[in-house]
């Protein structure tokens, strides 16, 4: 038997022993019975969570100066303030952060690839501690480390996750057969699971639900294929399988099925794709690890393992790309102008590929379903932060502390002056689930059946049902949920064909976040398969798109009227029972200030006038010598007047500075919710 294999098996056996022990402890008299919470509703209630959170355990966060821990992340989710970097020389933090309202559920998702590596490098008792890469890592952690030192080791190690799958390897410091990092990674994973157990509220108050998890961070040739792995409970796999262990998604799913779903231990797991927007269009490519097109077995596995997708987070939205496929002026929301992981990290403007967006996936999924029998991309919707500072659910536009380094985004690429992070990033969103109670079984089941929606941050409540016989005045019923639930399916569901019916009817009911802007309107986005082509159309079903609401750019005060709640019943008049289709709702708030405008407002910058002197100073400090200050720079202030004069018809032909105007961030945004679609499949 090869040595590395024997080592790995030994480690797995050891891990199973260890995990078995923790299971036994957790079983001692503590059950997680469905229905144990004091507040239980069979018609389901709304819970808010974040399933994408990084702490000091993630290599990239760690390199960005994050020192906040798993415990800090749970404290933050409960509403307690936590310290944030940058730290002073004496180790005291320079900033604090607190969420405005506690979350109901969280899953920490530290990158699995370097869980063991960090422990090895920080633990002098580890044989790998003295390795050159560890020495460089520790040097880069020092307060006075140069940007070059930080960049050097960050790129050297992180680049391993961008290797071709067949070349994906643990770092050298992990020793022969990767033993040091495998063993250390097991230790950390066990602690992660144990910490999630300790933070999970098993009382009938059900205040906080936690899920063990991690992020599988494969990015072959810098194309993002990352997915978060979420376990239902403390019954987990022996190792947090990462890109180096399983460099293909189907390998990961096979491991998870074998060692969790099919193991008969009560283990259950799902994976949540994210940031398909920076995958250069390969996230939904019809190609398996062996280079062949999807098989029916593959699409079944993907459908089963990936019920939901993260549509929005710090690194942008993945719903749709402006100008792609169909006219939809609202596709421009938080679309970052980068095509892959490297261009995002290095701020190199490169156009994203429309094939990396959800609209494309939904269409392709229907086409594949027609030929293979299962839709591999039948995703429900979630949203998250992807915080790298242990701050789950920290989505406030008026208090954005940054994605990572918070003042030092990468510690080798300085942020725009006055901003905590790169202007294209944003505070991310939240996942909402409709579940009977705030406990693991109920929340996990809701994710499985896709009764979920994502928001860009505000906690607006949205319910959507589809049926065949809903009355047009259903919105007036005080028991509309009971009626809609009894006669149809909720978001995430699939409508059964009804031979006698003419067209499906959809009910969408929404209420604003009491701490945010009023609602403006509700839309239904319909996509359908017409022969071999897929189409998309957007319908306004409630509210007023032309209500004239806005925000004052100097004070960020909201202006104009909106709606506290909205409800609409809509029937698809063009429905063709022979065509596959999906329908999801998009709920929009009135316009409000984007975080960049909040920062400008707070700093009393004049965001409507170009500050030439500031630009020159910034250029002297760290911008390339060929950068010209003759143009607006959205990072230093929004010179809208100048940018409006730039001819953006072909940005590629413009000087770099003027091209930047074409990618100007918007001063205001329309916060929104995206529901999971309701699907229609014609009779076979």
């Amino acid at each position: 038997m090869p040595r590395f294999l024997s080592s790995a098996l030994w480690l797995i056996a050891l891990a199973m022993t260890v995990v078995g022990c923790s299971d036994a402890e957790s079983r001692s008299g503590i059950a997680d019975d469905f229905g144990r919470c004091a507040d239980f509703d069979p018609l389901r209630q709304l819970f808010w969570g974040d399933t994408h959170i990084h702490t000091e355990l993630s290599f990239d966060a760690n390199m960005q100066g994050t020192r906040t821990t798993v415990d800090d992340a749970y404290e933050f989710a409960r509403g307690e303030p936590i310290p944030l970097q940058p730290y002073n020389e004496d180790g005291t933090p320079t900033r604090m952060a607190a969420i405005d309202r506690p979350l109901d559920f969280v899953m920490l998702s530290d990158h699995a690839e370097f869980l063991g590596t960090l422990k090895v490098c920080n633990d002098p008792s580890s044989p790998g501690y003295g390795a050159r890469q560890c020495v460089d890592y520790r040097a880069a952690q020092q307060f006075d480390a140069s940007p070059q030192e930080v960049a050097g080791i960050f790129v050297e190690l992180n680049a391993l996750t961008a290797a071709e799958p067949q070349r994906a390897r643990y770092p050298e410091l992990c020793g022969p057969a990767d033993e040091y990092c495998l063993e250390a990674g097991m230790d950390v994973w066990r602690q992660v699971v144990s910490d999630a157990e300790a933070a999970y509220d098993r009382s009938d108050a059900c205040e906080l639900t936690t899920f063990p998890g991690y992020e599988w961070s494969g990015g072959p040739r810098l194309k993002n294929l990352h997915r978060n792995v979420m376990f239902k409970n403390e019954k987990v796999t022996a190792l947090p399988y990462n890109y180096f262990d399983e460099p293909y998604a189907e390998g990961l799913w096979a491991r998870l099925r074998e060692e969790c779903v099919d193991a008969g231990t009560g283990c259950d797991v799902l994976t949540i794709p994210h940031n398909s927007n920076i995958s250069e269009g390969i996230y939904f490519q019809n190609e398996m690890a062996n280079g062949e097109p999807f098989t029916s077995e593959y699409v079944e596995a993907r459908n089963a393992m990936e019920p939901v997708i993260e549509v929005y987070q710090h690194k942008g939205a993945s719903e749709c790309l402006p100008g792609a496929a169909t006219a939809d002026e609202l596709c421009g929301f938080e679309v970052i102008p980068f095509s892959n992981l490297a261009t995002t990290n290095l701020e190199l403007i490169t156009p994203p590929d429309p094939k990396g967006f959800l609209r494309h996936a939904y269409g392709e999924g229907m086409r594949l379903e027609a030929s293979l029998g299962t839709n591999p991309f039948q995703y429900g919707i979630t949203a998250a932060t992807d915080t790298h500072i242990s701050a789950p659910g920290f989505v406030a536009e008026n208090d954005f502390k940054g994605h990572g380094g918070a003042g030092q985004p990468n510690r080798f690429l300085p942020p725009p002056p006055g901003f905590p992070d790169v202007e294209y990033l944003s505070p991310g969103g939240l996942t909402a689930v409709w579940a009977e109670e705030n406990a693991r079984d109920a929340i996990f089941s809701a994710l499985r059946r896709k009764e979920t929606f994502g928001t860009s941050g505000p906690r607006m409540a949205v319910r959507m049902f589809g049926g065949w016989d809903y009355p047009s005045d259903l919105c007036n019923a005080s028991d509309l949920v009971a009626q809609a639930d009894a006669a149809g399916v909720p978001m995430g569901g699939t409508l059964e064909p009804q031979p006698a019916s003419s067209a499906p009817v959809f009910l969408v009911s929404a209420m604003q976040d009491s701490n945010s802007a009023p609602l403006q309107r509700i839309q239904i986005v319909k996509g359908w398969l017409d022969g071999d082509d897929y189409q998309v159309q957007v319908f306004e079903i409630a509210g007023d798109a032309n209500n004239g609401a806005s925000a004052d750019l100097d004070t960020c005060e909201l202006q104009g009227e909106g709606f506290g709640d909205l409800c609409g019943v809509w029937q698809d008049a063009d429905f063709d029972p022979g065509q596959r289709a999906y329908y999801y709702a998009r709920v929009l708030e009135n316009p409000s200030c984007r975080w960049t405008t909040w920062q400008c407002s707070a700093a009393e910058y004049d965001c409507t006038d170009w500050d030439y002197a500031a630009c020159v100073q910034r250029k002297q400090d760290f911008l390339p010598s060929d950068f010209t200050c003759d143009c607006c720079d959205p990072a230093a202030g929004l010179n809208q007047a100048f940018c409006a004069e730039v001819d953006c018809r072909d940005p590629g032909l413009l000087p770099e500075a003027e091209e930047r105007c074409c990618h100007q961030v918007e001063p205001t945004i329309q916060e929104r919710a995206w529901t999971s679609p309701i699907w229609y499949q014609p009779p076979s």
Partner: protein
Amino acid sequence: MLRPLVHFFLIGGLLFSAKSVYEKSRIEGPAITVRVAVDATDANVETAVREAILLNEAQRLGWDRTDPIVYTHLIRNMRFIEPDSPDDDLALFQRAIEMNMQAHDPVVRARLLYRAREALTFVPEDRMPSRAELEEHRRTHEDRFEREGRVRFQQVFLSRSKRREALAADAREMRERLAALGDSAPAGLGDSLPGLRPEQSATPSELKDDYGAELAVAVGEAVVGAWRGPVSSVYGLHFVKVIGTEPAYVPPLDVIGAEVRADRLREIREEVRQERMAALREAYRITIERAP
């Protein structure tokens, strides 16, 4: 499970006994001289003293000569100094020891301090909290584990978006209808909102988060069994009738055992660290030398 045992037997076992060696047996500890900067503050001096004690303990236990990391690191140093040396690793290591390299190398120093600090905070089996201790911890720190009280109430809602100018008149009419209801449930009355239930149980915090402070206060102040309202929110007007209240409580240990244990272990680690450090600090005879 295994790693702590390895730590205990191979790394920290001897240091753990510092308390009994130096405190219970009243054995006088070593004398050491700690050099600090002439302008060092009291805090700087104390830090230097503690590090010197831990380093001395590590050296007293021979970790500077037996530790595998120190071994590897010193060999690497020697290979750097003598790149052409034909000697094997052991010979190089012995020469490094003869040169007293381990006493001055910053990596060795960090390694020894790390091991000593790990040993200080290790919780031995006899200090692991028993069920009785956890129960006591739960009882004496109820504020850490308390769950917020809940209110069970009925609610009727009138939507501002839906009723617009008629909202105030509709509210007056609704108040009269509710007053006439008696103990009957308000079935079919009012408008719907996503998540709004005719009867629900909630904490004041949840109500504030969902509907705003005004409604949370109104529910908190409501007399049980009587309709109250209308109360305004960003959504419209609300009428509430409190059915019952459940006070704040601390869940039993069977339910929050993991939470209590984690909390108590954090304390114990700090306790044993302080105990062991204090015992060492008391036993050692320290001379401070200030140097420019």
